[in-house]
């Protein structure tokens, strides 16, 4: 067995083992059932919530909100990044801002956003967008900075127009970094929207988890928690695998 495979299998074993351990601790009542229910019960409860369609609206609301925040942040972040990259003077002014951007606890603005836009999905979209856009800007700048100079020289020797050199050389060369931005933007808009729903909102998965918590409905609460964590992990994992494949193909020996 290769080292890579051994690592992979050990990782799977660690994760499965932890779940089994929690299951056992719950079943043996070492963990109070009022604190945590066994993962198998969470899964069963989740299955029922899904087939009875009780959470369909919440799922639809959360995912559509995330999708809007994600698309807006990727488009805006990419355009902003490209513009800032093209203007070194602006770049110099904005760099310190980007460096401290994520030190700002943006969720403190969320109540204010509700006061501004009302208790609907707009504050959620805004908080997800604000949280995700900077990651895309930073990744775009990173990617454009790292296009080797020799590649742009090559486009000039090949007498390519500037639009075709952007399309066929700059963008493919920056692609791994842009993809990192995409990945972070997705994770961040998901985190932003769920957290917003959780703190204060009228619907969505985060709201339903908070609602279940307040009503001592552990079955529903843990089922939805599991759903969110599994979805987030699968989503990030899939993008991670795709990214690794792209990087491996390009990695210089």
């Amino acid at each position: 067995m290769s080292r890579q495979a051994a690592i992979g299998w050990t990782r799977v074993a660690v994760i499965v083992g932890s779940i089994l351990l929690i299951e056992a601790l719950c079943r043996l009542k070492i963990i109070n059932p009022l604190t945590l229910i066994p993962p198998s019960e969470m899964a069963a409860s989740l299955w029922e919530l899904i087939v009875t369609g009780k959470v369909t609206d919440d799922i639809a609301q959360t995912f559509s909100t995330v999708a809007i925040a994600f698309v807006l942040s990727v488009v805006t972040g990419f355009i902003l990044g490209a513009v800032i990259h093209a203007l070194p003077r602006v770049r110099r002014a904005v760099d310190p801002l980007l460096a401290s951007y994520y030190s700002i606890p943006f969720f403190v603005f969320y109540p204010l956003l509700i006061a501004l836009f009302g208790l609907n999905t707009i504050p959620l979209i805004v908080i997800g967008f604000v949280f995700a856009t900077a990651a895309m800007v930073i990744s775009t700048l990173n990617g454009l900075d790292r296009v080797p100079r020799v590649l742009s020289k090559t486009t000039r020797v090949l007498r390519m127009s500037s639009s075709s050199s952007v399309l066929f050389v700059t963008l493919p060369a920056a692609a791994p970094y842009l993809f990192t931005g995409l990945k972070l933007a997705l994770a961040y808009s998901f985190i932003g929207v769920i957290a917003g729903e959780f703190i204060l909102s009228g619907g969505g998965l985060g709201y339903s988890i908070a609602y279940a918590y307040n009503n001592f409905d552990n079955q529903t609460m843990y089922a939805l928690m599991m759903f969110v964590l599994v979805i987030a992990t699968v989503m990030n994992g899939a993008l991670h695998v795709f990214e690794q494949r792209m990087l491996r193909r390009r990695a210089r020996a």
Partner: protein
Amino acid sequence: MTAQPPAWLAFSSRALDALVIAALFVAVWQGLYEYAGDSAITAPLATLSYAASLVKTSNFWGHAQATLVAFAYSLVISIVLGVVLGLALGLQRFAGDVAEPIFVALYTIPKVTLYPLILLIFGLGVSAKVAFGVIHGVIPIILFTLNAVKNINPVLLRTSRAMRLTQWQTVTTVLAPAVMPELITGVRVGFSLTMLGVLIGEMFASQRGLGFLIVNGISMHNVPMTTAVILIVVVFAIAANGLLLWIDKRMHRAA
């Protein structure tokens, strides 16, 4: 290419940049106020004067203290736990390779959904806030420390062996200085996320702390309170990060 301006001019142009950005920010704020009015947000100047009088009240300091105490506990636990785990996983190559993607995955999930679990374990109160701060802050510190150890230039360790340094000497004179800059970066990121965790905790279920004041201000229609506390929190966060960023940059330059 144009001639470079002298150093003092470069400095003042940087100060000018900061001024322009601050002015833009205030303008957007004022614009939001003009658009939404008193019921949603307070104007910049009014917020500043409200904040000035707020920091004179003992009520505010009671809440600020609650937040700072929880934050301080979380940060210390995050740093100690993060550095120890990061070092251990960095030195144990196999364990590190197994664990790293798990921590990366934990970093990108919406941890806020775990808050009810933490409340059920720790109960309402300071320990739940601390725990929630720690699960936010510890992961970046682990990851930065782990990668710093993993990416130490192997020739440094070979050199220390060629110089016949003892294990202890290697750790204190080669390993620690080599890892320190990245560790500081981890602490900086961990600092911000710990604070985020503590504040979210207070916003969701708490009767104390600045996060509580922000949410409470909105539900009691006390908009000036909410706006002023947000301003104070954001200014504190940016100032603290600025200081840590400065240390961070010095460390990286020295390394």
